Each structure stands twice: as C-alpha cells, then as structure tokens.
C-alpha cells in the first residue's frame, strides 16, 4: 500500500506542487511559444511527455553505469544523450509511425533545447530516485507541463477575443496571465500528505 501511496504523492508533487512551468519556471520557451492554440499546445505536451520519459530512462542508465564515478559530468552527458535521443526518436517515428510524426511535426526537434527535459533528468539523479520512480516522476512532470500549457492556451484563446488595452496586446498580456496562473499554482504549496 505504501508504495502506491508513494507513487501517488510523487505524481501530485510533480504535476502540481512542483509544476515545471508554473512553479519551477522551466520550459518557459515552448510554454510561451506554442500556446496560442489548444491544439498545438496539446501536440507540444504529448511530444514533451514522450521525450521526457524516454530521456529519464536513458539518462538514469547513463548516470548509473557510465558516469557513476564522475557526477560533475552529468550536465554535459545528459545534454548529449537527450539531443541524440530526440534525433533518434524523430527518425524512428518518421519511419515507423508516419501519422504520429506528422502530428508531432515541428515540436519533436524543438524539444532538443527544452530545459524542462534536462531539468527532470537532473532532478531524478539529485534525488536518487530508483529507475521506476524516475520514470514515473518524469511522466507526471510532463503531464504537469501539458496541463500548464493547455490551460494557458485556453486562456490565450480567450484573450484573442477580449478587449485589451492597446499597450497590453499580445505578449504583455500573455506574460501577465502566465504570472497569474503561476500564482494560482502556488496555492498547491500548502498541500501536505
């Protein structure tokens, strides 16, 4: 029972309490860049989920078996692994599942430089998560990212049709709403298990 509880707590922590975008401020670039429509935001969210889980699996193995004696190499090794992994996944998906490839489209290569992916792998290592835990944590964190970006896309779609003072139109109002959303998510800090 306690394992199930641990996993549930971890998921809620990763999704809400430590939401990557709105609380930890990682992955802001895609959060602002592709959040104009719910559709594209969902696409980005799915692509991030895909890459985050795969990247944590691979980096966990790299950290455990290759650079266990040299932890200062984590950052550079992880960047290397993630970049190569995204390239590999892109090639593989293009060949094996063309429909998924066209759905993910441009988002897949964009994630190569997404700091949220690097962030989740570093956190996994820093907190000494087991293999299963790190997979689960990164999956939940990616869901949290998707939640944030889809919520924000919904807000921005509404903004398109509302009356906004001229000097706030476009990015200013988007940044302000992102800030408000972030403050709202701070409310989850009070959760205790």
């Amino acid at each position, binding site marked *: 029972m306690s394992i199930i509880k641990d996993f549930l707590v971890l998921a809620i922590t990763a999704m809400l309490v430590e939401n990557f975008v709105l609380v930890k401020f990682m992955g802001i670039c895609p959060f602002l860049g592709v959040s104009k429509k719910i559709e594209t935001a969902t696409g980005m969210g799915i692509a991030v989920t895909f890459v985050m889980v795969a990247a944590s699996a691979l980096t966990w193995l*790299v950290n455990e078996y*290759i*650079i266990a*004696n*040299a932890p*200062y*190499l984590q950052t*550079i*090794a992880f960047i*290397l*692994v993630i970049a*190569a992994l995204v*390239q*590999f996944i892109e*090639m*593989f998906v*293009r*060949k*094996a599942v063309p429909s998924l490839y066209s759905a993910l489209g441009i988002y897949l290569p964009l994630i190569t430089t997404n700091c949220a992916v690097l962030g989740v792998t570093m956190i996994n290592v820093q907190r000494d998560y087991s293999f299963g835990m790190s997979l689960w944590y990164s999956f939940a964190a990616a869901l949290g990212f998707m939640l944030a970006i889809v919520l924000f896309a919904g807000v921005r779609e509404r903004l398109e*049709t509302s009356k906004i003072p001229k000097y706030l139109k476009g990015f200013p109002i988007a940044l302000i709403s992102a800030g408000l959303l972030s403050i709202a998510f701070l409310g989850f800090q009070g959760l205790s298990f």
Partner: protein
Amino acid sequence: MIEILVPALSVGGIALVLGALLAFASVVFKVDVDEREEKIAEILPGANCGGCGYAGCSAFASAIVNEGAEITKCNLMTDEKLSAIASIMGVEAGKKIKKVARVACNGTCSVAKEKYEYYGLDDCATAAQLGGGAKACAYGCLGLGSCAVKCPFGAISIVDGIATVDENKCVGCSACANICPKGLITVAEVKPTAFVNCASKDKGAVVNNVCEAGCIGCKICEKKCEFDAIHVTDNLAKVDSDKCTGCGLCAEACPKKIIEIL
C-alpha cells in the same frame, strides 16, 4: 592523468556510441522521398495558400508526383516556373488561366442603409450572427474585413464600407471566398464579361428600401442582351460568362448602374 582520461573517455565514448547509433539509424530508418517531389516543392511559391486545393505547397508537390495533379492548379505560378516543373515531370506545361476574386456588392456607406449600429469584434462571421449583420440588406457586404485579414497576399482592402479586390495582387486562391459569411465573393477567370455587382435576391421594392445600388430584378438587361447571356432568377440578374462577350449593352441599360464590364 586519470582525472582527464575519465571524463574524456566517458563523454567521448557516449558521443561515439550515440553518433554511431544515429548514423546507423539514419540508414535503417531512411524514408524514401521522391527526388522530384523535393525539387518541385522548391520551385513552388511556398505561400501555402491552399488555392490549389491541397493542404500546402509540399502536399501539392507530392500530389503532382504521385497522383498526377494538374500543375496549373497553382495560381501563383509564373510561366518559367511552370515549364521548370513540367520538365522535371517530363510533361507539357499547360496554359495557365489567371483568376481573380470579385465581391458582388455595391452597397457603399452612402447608398446602403444600416439597421443598427454595430459595436463588437471586427469579424464578419460574428457580426452576421446578430440578425445577419448591421446592414439593412440581408445579402450585402458587412465591410468588417474578415476577407482582408484572411487574404495572404494583401489584395483586399475595405473601401467605403465594402471589400475591394486589387486584381494585380489577387491570385485567385479562394481564401476570401471561403470565409465570407455572405458568400459574396466569387473567383472567376479574367476575361471581358459583364459582372452584376449585387447579390440581393429580395424583390425590387424591398431592395429599394434598403439600398440605392441593388439589383431590383427589372429584367431590362435580359431584354437588351443580344447573346442570351444574362438572366434574372430569384430577382437577381446572373451572367452566363460562357455566352457573355462583354459588349456592355446591359451595363448601359441598367437603371441602377450596377452592371460592370470587366
């Protein structure tokens, strides 16, 4: 020494392995793309306007190669580009017909009445939901410029309350025709022909009430025409562009002066 060797070897080793893996994967997972497809996609304008009926320029390129789509469907194509593509495909280049969009409404601010004052989004579809828009005529151009926004080539502007097409900029992609909630915009070949600048199917008396420049369905044009090319159906004159020679007899006779010779 060991302090340098460990990071160099481990990171270098990872990089080598991953590099080899990627090189291997690029061979194994190679997706065969027809060379001609890429070449044609390069020649195509890349505007992705959708005027050809395909999702975009690359989709059109693949349709040309795989499904034998007509090259001339692209409205932006110049003659040189056309023959370049034709030589890639090894076929004769067809003749391209220039098409432009036309807006069938003459109801400028001064001649067409309004039934209420509209305050809201500058979007025709939204305005059209409020009792068909502010214009008293149920068929007229709302002049909020959704077509002008949609036009990828900046060819449409709102002049005196109605959409006006710049024929030099227009490529006939139909983007505007698809978005107009009143269905006022038609895309047709450029040739000398008469064009009825009204879309109202109301009876003459109703038309006169709401707009000074509307077709009242009086059938004078029908009688004047020597080529049987213009007919009034549903209180609205319609030109048969196959028969019309653009002689201008109907335009002269029209009491409302709403027929234009193009």
